[in-house]
């Protein structure tokens, strides 16, 4: 059977596809080593959406038409999720999507599953760090004007306002421009205490580098969960240098500690996949890769629990494997899960990315941590926002 990676592999977001492919490889490696799913082995196949919602529709139709043995889909980024999810739902294909778009916060898609935080909550987390942890009052917003990043601005602005802070400047910058110096200078003139940002690709690297030059030094930066990512680290550290990045940057992220049996299993299999995909090891601390790996394992365990590879039968089991019922055995590896299921127990999968808590809309929320980088670009947990603090923001912002 096939795990389809439905994502941009060419075009402006070409960096995303390979990261998700790197999630599939260790998962199928672990699954096949234990005999596959109900005896059937899995393999990974890429389907390029070209980063365009109109091109994504024939891509997903071609995928479904040409692959009758499609087990599940991973990927579906903000570039195309809105146009492909209805089709995946109609064809009963379970999907783990990497989009924070608000339209999936309360959707009715049963086959949609999301392990990344919705953009609105990510924004609240960032504001929470600025306000609760560091008591910053003057906050600047620098977000890319693309689909994935602009959805932060509204929630962030409301949250700042309701908490009594001051948003000194809100810049929506076009991605991939060669220079943002005028924008940077305008920001410097407002004397912010901190900059909240998500502007992917080369944008943050260019912007922050010019900020450092023009300001004569860095200003504290808080990034979204998407900025905790080896690709972002490399681009920005190349541009502003590792010491400044380590000192001035924090981010909001879902709890991950890159430790534990679940993570080790992921890491072992990822490094072993270098034969199939030479760059796979570089994604060892990339959140999206880790989450999608968990998604594949969870779905495989769901199919095993349901004793069926019929999508309509095993799809509801994904939630059960993720959340666990009472008396479920917690497992961290596919092989352990198979063993537990064989001896008749129910399982709950706590994988490389930590425990899952699906809500009724198939979104998983595990709280937020405060993270920054060490000199090697690894994520380090620097603190946590308490559930009370998060609830306070959510209540104030009226979500």
């Amino acid at each position: 059977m096939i795990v389809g990676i439905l994502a941009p592999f060419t075009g402006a977001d070409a960096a995303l596809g390979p990261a998700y492919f790197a999630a599939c490889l260790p998962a199928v490696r672990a699954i096949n080593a234990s005999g596959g799913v109900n005896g059937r082995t899995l393999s990974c196949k890429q389907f390029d959406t070209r980063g365009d919602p109109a091109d994504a529709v024939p891509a997903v139709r071609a995928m479904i038409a040409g692959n009758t043995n499609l087990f599940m889909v991973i990927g579906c980024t903000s570039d195309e999720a809105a146009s492909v999810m209805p089709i995946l739902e109609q064809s009963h294909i379970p999907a783990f999507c990497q989009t924070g778009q608000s339209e999936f916060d309360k959707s009715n898609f049963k086959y949609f599953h999301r392990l990344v935080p919705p953009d609105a909550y990510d924004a609240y987390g960032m504001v929470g760090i600025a306000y609760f942890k560091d008591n910053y009052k003057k906050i600047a917003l620098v977000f890319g004007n693309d689909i994935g990043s602009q959805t932060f601005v509204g929630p962030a602005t409301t949250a700042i306002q309701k908490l009594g802070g001051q948003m000194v400047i809100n810049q929506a910058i076009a991605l991939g421009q060669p220079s943002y110096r005028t924008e940077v200078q305008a920001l410097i003139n407002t004397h912010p205490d901190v900059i909240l940002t998500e502007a992917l690709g080369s944008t943050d690297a260019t912007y922050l580098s010019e900020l450092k030059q023009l300001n004569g030094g860095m200003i504290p930066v808080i990034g979204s969960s998407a900025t905790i990512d080896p690709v972002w680290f490399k681009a920005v550290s190349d541009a502003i240098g590792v010491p400044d990045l380590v000192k001035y940057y924090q981010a909001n992220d879902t709890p991950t500690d890159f430790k534990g049996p679940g993570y080790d299993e992921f890491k072992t299999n990822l490094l072993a996949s270098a034969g199939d995909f030479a760059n796979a090891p570089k994604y060892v601390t990339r959140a999206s890769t880790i989450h999608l790996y968990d998604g594949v394992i969870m779905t495989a365990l769901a199919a095993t629990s349901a004793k069926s590879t019929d999508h309509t039968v095993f799809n509801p089991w994904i939630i059960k494997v993720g959340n666990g019922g009472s008396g479920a055995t917690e497992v961290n590896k596919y092989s352990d899960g198979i063993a537990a299921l064989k001896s008749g127990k129910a399982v709950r999968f706590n994988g490389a990315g930590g425990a899952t808590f699906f809500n009724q809309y198939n979104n998983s929320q595990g709280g937020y941590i405060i993270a920054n980088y060490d000199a090697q670009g690894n994520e380090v947990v620097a603190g946590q926002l308490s559930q009370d603090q998060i609830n306070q923001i959510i209540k104030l912002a009226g979500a």
Partner: protein
Amino acid sequence: MTFYITTLLVYAAVDIIACIALNMQFGVSGLVNFGFILFQAAGAYTAAVLSLPPQSANGGFQQYVLGLQLPFPLPWIAGAIAGGVVAIPIGLVVLRKLRGDYQAIALLVISIIANIVITNARPFLNGAAGVSLVPPPLADQIGVEAVNTYEYQYFYVVISLLCVGLVLFAANRIANSPYGRSLRAMRENEVAAAALGKNLLAQKLTMFIVGGVMGGLSGAILVGFIGLWAPAGWLYPETIVLFAAIIVGGRGNNWGAILGAILVPVGFFEATRFLPNFGQPGLIPAFQWVAIGSLILGFLWFRPKGVFPERRRTFPNPSAG
């Protein structure tokens, strides 16, 4: 598989209408409209905001104007009209004073400006995210479940092909009429045509608007099918791909436009999806694009005037015999 085929048929219909429209502007009248995709976008957005419920629906996560939830076929008609309406001011400004390739660049730049403005003016058409959850035609009448059936797909293919027929009929009537001769005269030699008393500006503007109307209709059909429309879907390379289609197929005639539409945006772009997977991820998709470029080059090399070059219309020598 059926769904994939119906998808391809609808996309083919959309591209055929767009290519015929472009052929009207470029092939027959000689207007190099490098900003064509803007008309398709105008039609798509108009049809979308007329079919969508008010912006507070679906949890209010989008911001857009109107939201009138009009029944089919009103949004499609409005989309076509919108394409024509957008063409008027642009045509008046650009066609009046600019020659040839300057028009091309100006129109290209105008489509880029529009894309940037809509991306950034968020409450207008929901910015970069675009408008989504657009109800397909007749969704209110037949219910959401019925939309997911084979019958609905066939229905969609049929109405799309009907639109193709309509557009083809109109285009043929124009091209084969005395008006069409006058257009070709203008394309071949503007000075001579003007000397013969043809009102060039009126002809150019009319063809621009006609092409805009057809382009708008193609946008309405597409948005009804895929359910969303965002700036990423109408960047300037889309127009260039359509130009490649009519050049490869043969400019100046509708059969060339149809063949080009089937070959390039549908044929090349889709067939290359089925190339065998090898190598690192991302390699195949990149090579798919290389294959598309090679196919275009190959066709242009062997048939520089297009697969169906324009028929040279000859007239018998009246004084012979």
